[in-house]
């Protein structure tokens, strides 16, 4: 374990007005062994965090488009700048929508093709482990985490979908059924550097036997913590 490190990694969790899963995301960080730091949408100071989670929910009431107004919040200006310098950023559900609206990730998320809100446990296949958030997962590993969205259909133009595939930018794919009409069964994607990942399903809801369908989601959080602690382990 990394408990002998001088300090645990500090992972910021942003709260926008209308965020719902910020509490669970902070809890997942703590269970994974990190120190959650609550970040407020109007505060552009990231308080020196080592990584950031954009949680699920309905930021700004989903007004205009999901994530569209959050993208121009003060905290996002700092996160976009940080992401450009390699700060690990994970967007879950509404957080994924915010990352697409911010152009940190390509494509967009539109209303589910079947028009219903979907809330169920969902199997995913890990398609890329070369990211800050999936490095402790195995290629091809199948994990079970909840998915819950109304506008979770991932869409991009055909050229973008092709290079996402060929460049290995697809991180998670839905298996045993596509819950929302996402193109190519895409459940999560990454940026070029691998520090930014967006995913529609909710790993933060699968970190404890008592409340989740599995504890498969925990590895997403331990992955980033392991990467952040690695340098201090070397110098220790």
């Amino acid at each position, binding site marked *: 374990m990394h408990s002998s490190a001088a300090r645990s990694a500090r992972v910021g969790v942003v709260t926008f007005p209308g965020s719902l899963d910020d509490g669970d995301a902070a809890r997942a960080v703590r269970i994974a062994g990190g120190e959650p730091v609550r970040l407020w949408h109007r505060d552009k100071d990231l308080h020196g965090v080592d990584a950031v989670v954009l949680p699920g929910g309905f930021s700004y009431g989903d007004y205009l488009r999901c994530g569209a107004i959050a993208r121009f919040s003060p905290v996002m200006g700092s996160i976009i700048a940080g992401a450009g310098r390699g700060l690990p950023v994970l967007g879950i559900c509404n957080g994924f929508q915010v990352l697409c*609206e911010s152009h940190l990730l390509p494509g*967009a998320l*539109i209303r589910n*093709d079947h*028009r219903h809100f979907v809330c169920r446990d969902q199997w995913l296949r890990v398609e890329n482990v070369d990211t800050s958030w999936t490095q402790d997962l195995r290629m091809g590993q199948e994990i079970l985490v909840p998915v819950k969205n109304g506008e979770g*259909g991932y869409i991009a*133009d055909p050229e973008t979908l092709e290079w996402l595939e060929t460049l290995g930018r697809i991180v998670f794919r839905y298996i045993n059924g596509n819950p929302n009409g996402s193109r190519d069964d895409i459940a999560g994607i990454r940026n070029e550097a691998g520090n930014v990942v967006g995913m529609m399903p909710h790993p933060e809801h699968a970190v404890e036997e008592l409340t989740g369908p599995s504890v498969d989601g925990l590895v997403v959080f331990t992955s980033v913590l392991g990467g952040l602690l690695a340098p201090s382990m070397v110098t220790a």
Partner: protein
Amino acid sequence: MSTPAERSEARVTSRVVVDVMPKPEILDPQGQAIQKALGRMGFAAVSAVRQGKRFEVEIDGEVDAAALAQVEQMAETLLANTVIEEFVVRVEQ
């Protein structure tokens, strides 16, 4: 102090309308749901409905080229997501 006439002159505003529509190739589940409802209501001839958004932007003073360019910029950056939507900007007379 300004006179009432000056104050009313200062309040002159113009309206610029931005129409935003999903791109033709983008699935529009809301439009599909509306089309189905119209069918149930007896409007049998409706072959398709697409749902978009209309923004009415009030601009202080007259709309000149610079003001229009600003609204274009608003549409491009916030009002529309050009990955999935297209927009048209026009001055309402």
